[in-house]
């Protein structure tokens, strides 16, 4: 075999041990951000270096890897990372959520419920939920130590004062097992309830910010809210234009320069599976303002 050879899953063993120790501490203290010595990866910060390092540290030859970018298996980031591990670890890759044992994600949680044997690895840009409220790391660290989270409630309250409702739509803060407030990474808040009592282990890697944190399976994860302004999921009020799903998170897709648009499932695997099983169903519904879809377009 010619060409460069890599250690299994790219990282050297000492780096993997360091990351593995951080992962174990992260699981033992759910929601707490464990500092780790993030390495330079052969991709720029912001492209998932944290998630890639976590995946590289846990991946084994028997794993089946799925990578999604905003729910999609076939965008640049997802394809690149999938190829990266296919090349450096030789693992089997898949786009099927239920087949995967390790799923690396950028900003979505798959629609299909995750199972006991699965690990969900999030790519996280800013792990600190208090960072935009308090820029000093020494202070945010102390606030976490004291469980002093009044400031983040004030932020949500200011949303209500300004907009009449909690206007935070993504990176919506959650409290893990009644203790640490955590940034779920910029997933849409539609996905927040899926983190609660999830059967899969959830690991979060922030490469640039050098933090790893975790939610063990079957852990209580509560989205912060108020009694009179309870947490609400949000989704566009339309069925998916491709598969007709009314329960999935939708992307708004601009189709022309005259205001035409359609809504389609963000989770491509979910959408494709539904279309494959529902071929005989009636014409899929279109969202408001959506152009007439070619029913056969797949």
């Amino acid at each position, binding site marked *: 075999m010619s060409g460069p050879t890599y*250690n*299994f899953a790219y990282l050297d*063993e*000492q780096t*993997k*041990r*360091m990351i*593995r*120790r*951080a*992962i*174990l*501490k*992260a*699981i*033992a*203290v*759910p929601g*707490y951000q*464990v*500092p780790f010595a993030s390495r330079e990866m052969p991709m720029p910060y912001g492209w998932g270096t944290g998630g890639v390092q976590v995946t590289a*540290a*846990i*991946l*084994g*030859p028997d794993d089946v890897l799925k990578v999604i970018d905003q729910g999609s298996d076939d965008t640049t980031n997802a394809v690149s990372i999938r190829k990266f591990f296919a090349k450096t670890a030789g693992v089997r890759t898949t786009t099927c959520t239920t087949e995967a044992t390790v799923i690396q994600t950028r900003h979505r949680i798959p629609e299909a419920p995750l199972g006991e044997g699965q690990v969900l690895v999030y790519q996280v840009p800013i792990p600190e939920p208090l960072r935009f409220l308090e820029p000093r790391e020494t202070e945010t*660290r*102390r606030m*976490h*130590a*004291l469980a002093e989270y009044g400031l983040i409630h004030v932020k949500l309250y200011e949303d209500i004062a300004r907009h009449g409702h909690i206007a935070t739509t993504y990176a919506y803060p959650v409290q*893990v*097992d009644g*203790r*640490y407030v955590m940034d779920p990474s910029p997933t849409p808040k539609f996905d927040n309830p899926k983190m609660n009592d999830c*059967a899969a*282990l959830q690991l979060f890697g922030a490469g640039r910010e050098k933090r790893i944190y*975790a*939610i*063990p*399976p*079957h*852990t*209580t994860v509560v989205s912060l809210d108020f009694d009179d302004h309870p947490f609400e999921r949000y989704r566009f009020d339309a069925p998916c234009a491709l598969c007709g799903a009314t329960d999935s998170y939708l992307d708004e897709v601009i189709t022309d320069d005259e205001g035409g648009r359609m809504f389609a499932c963000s989770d491509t695997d979910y959408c494709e599976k539904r279309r494959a099983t529902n071929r005989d169903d009636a014409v899929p519904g279109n969202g408001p303002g959506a152009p007439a879809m070619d029913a056969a377009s797949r």
Partner: protein
Amino acid sequence: MTATAAPGFADPVLSAQSVFRAIMDATARPGSIQSIEGVASAPPPLSAGAAAIALTLLDQDTPVWLDACLAAVPECGDWLRFHTGAPIAADASRSAFAFVGSAAQLPQFDTFSLGTPEYPDRSTTLVFQVDGFSVGPPLALSGPGIRGRQVFRAAPLPADFAERLAANRAQFPCGVDVLLVCSNAVAALPRSVHVIAEGG
């Protein structure tokens, strides 16, 4: 030092990965038993399973403390140093890992590093050798990683082990994390675990 240290993992990369995944699954699901492939060549009284954990997690960055049972046999410390490069810590409170060979000698948890409220991750991980997971008084566990409740057994354990775990949990987020290991299986009791009752 012995002339030649006994060998470690046959395949350092893939063995470490599979042992780590077992430890990770054990930590993520406290009280569950995960099988691992031990290192048969480990010098007794260091068990094959504890040796596998050492090769997976220790390196030059992790001071390791050995209890009297393990420290009494120089081959154990020599083997760990040779294969992992980990410095042997004389002071348990400055160790990243502590290997405990016998239940009777399990020190109180507060002799180890418990981390600080700002950095709870800077605490000692205890690796505690047991004979097996099928006997012993049942501990009923709940908490993160556990659906409902989980019954856990291991032997030998100190008589007041449940109280020690409860005291450890009371200090959350500080506290030690415990890995229990026999020759071919590992279980974890991270600091997040609640002991809800003790029967039998």
